């Protein structure tokens, strides 16, 4: 605890010299302080520190996330709690039949995406749908469906405060390499890579947008612009369209690999889902 306090104080001092005041704020949700700044892990070559996107938002947006009654994403968590107990599919099961209380899934979000038993990289959505089709014998949910967003928000909430910690070695390594390569690839007519904005220019304004590091520890996110929850892959799609690039599909192998690489860039940051952003 002591070490973390010192690191945070140092980080705050560094930030204070370059950034506006709200980047120094502490994210305290329902009395618990979340880790929004952490030393960059060794596999992130060009950063010394990793910073939650929360730090880059306005005071008003920041405030919405500090109280679960104000956080508009929480309504959807409540909806998922109902779904959790509802039997669906030919096997006559609900989530609760196997997992009992949602809290049994604490920690899951910190490890996503993760390689499955068959060696395939799966995002949380894939695991949810595997439960639905294999064990419940129910229809899979669409990636960006309300049911899926609600459920990933509920599952993420069980890990709130826990540091992101995805596996990037062994069977995950080739996926991680693929994601890393994408991160540095320029796409679209504007010919920009993720790194151009989120590594080289975080903290700077690009027209009206305050560029963050593009961390994904807060997903699924309640975005004020969307007036609803959205998935990580939806955000990727939006960024690609902004640079006039043909996006990959939500749930595609490419976006899942990119998700793994980004998750690894946020190692040490608290899970915040459902977070609030503008």
């Amino acid at each position, binding site marked *: 605890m002591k070490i973390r306090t010192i690191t945070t104080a140092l980080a705050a001092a560094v930030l204070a010299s370059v950034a506006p005041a709200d980047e120094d704020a502490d994210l305290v949700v329902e009395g618990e302080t979340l880790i929004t700044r952490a030393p960059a892990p060794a596999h992130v070559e060009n950063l010394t520190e990793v910073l939650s996107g929360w730090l880059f938002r306005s005071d008003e947006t920041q405030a919405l996330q500090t109280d679960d009654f104000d956080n508009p994403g929480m309504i959807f968590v409540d909806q998922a709690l109902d779904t959790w107990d509802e039997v669906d599919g030919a096997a006559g099961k609900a989530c609760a039949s196997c997992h009992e209380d949602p809290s049994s899934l604490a920690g899951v979000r910190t490890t996503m995406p993760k390689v499955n038993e068959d060696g395939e990289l799966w995002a949380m959505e894939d695991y949810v749908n595997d439960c639905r089709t294999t064990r419940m014998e129910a229809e899979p949910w669409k990636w960006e469906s309300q049911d899926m967003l609600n459920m990933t928000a509920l599952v993420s909430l069980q890990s709130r405060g826990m540091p992101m910690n995805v596996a990037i070695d062994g069977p995950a390594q080739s996926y991680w390499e693929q994601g890393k390569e994408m991160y540095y*690839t*320029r*796409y*679209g*007519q*504007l*010919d*920009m890579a993720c790194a*151009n*904005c989120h590594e*080289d*220019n975080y903290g*700077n*304004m*690009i*027209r*009206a947008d305050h*560029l963050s590091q593009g961390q994904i520890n807060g997903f699924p996110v309640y975005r004020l612009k969307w007036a609803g929850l959205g998935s990580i892959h939806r955000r990727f799609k939006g960024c*690609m*369209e902004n640079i*006039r*690039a*043909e996006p990959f599909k939500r749930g595609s192998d490419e976006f899942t690999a990119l998700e793994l690489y980004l998750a690894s860039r946020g190692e040490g940051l608290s899970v915040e889902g459902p977070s609030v952003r503008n």
Partner: protein
Amino acid sequence: MVRISGAVLIALLAAGPAGAEVVAPQQVIFDDGAVPSSLTGVPGNAEVGRTIAVDRKLGNCLACHENTDLAAEPFHGEVAPPLDGVADRWSEAELRGILINSKMMFEGTIMPAFYRDTGYSRILPDFEGMTILDAQQVEDVLAYLLTLTE
């Protein structure tokens, strides 16, 4: 038939003085990142260029650059050096080169190439084979940049 060729002729005339050819993106010749000759032979219009520089779907220069001359416009970016005084720092040929494809001047830059139509990865079909600005728009923005002296 006669009418149609008439229309074509007018279109050609409108694009430039008789005989002047628009230089296609792939025909542009760079000299150390600079492009000495006009893309169209038609002098740029600085007023039009100023509007293009602001337009989010065209130049959108303010996304990255601050510019005191455009102080009335909201939200100037902080990603790039301010455009104030660029005409003192760079020649006309250099500025044309920077606009056409700044990567020829600044290796690895984030700044998009405004007059390049190939070599993109996963470009949206709507923009396939197209440049961000057309040749005359490049000359117009150039004329505007040349007014930015200190």
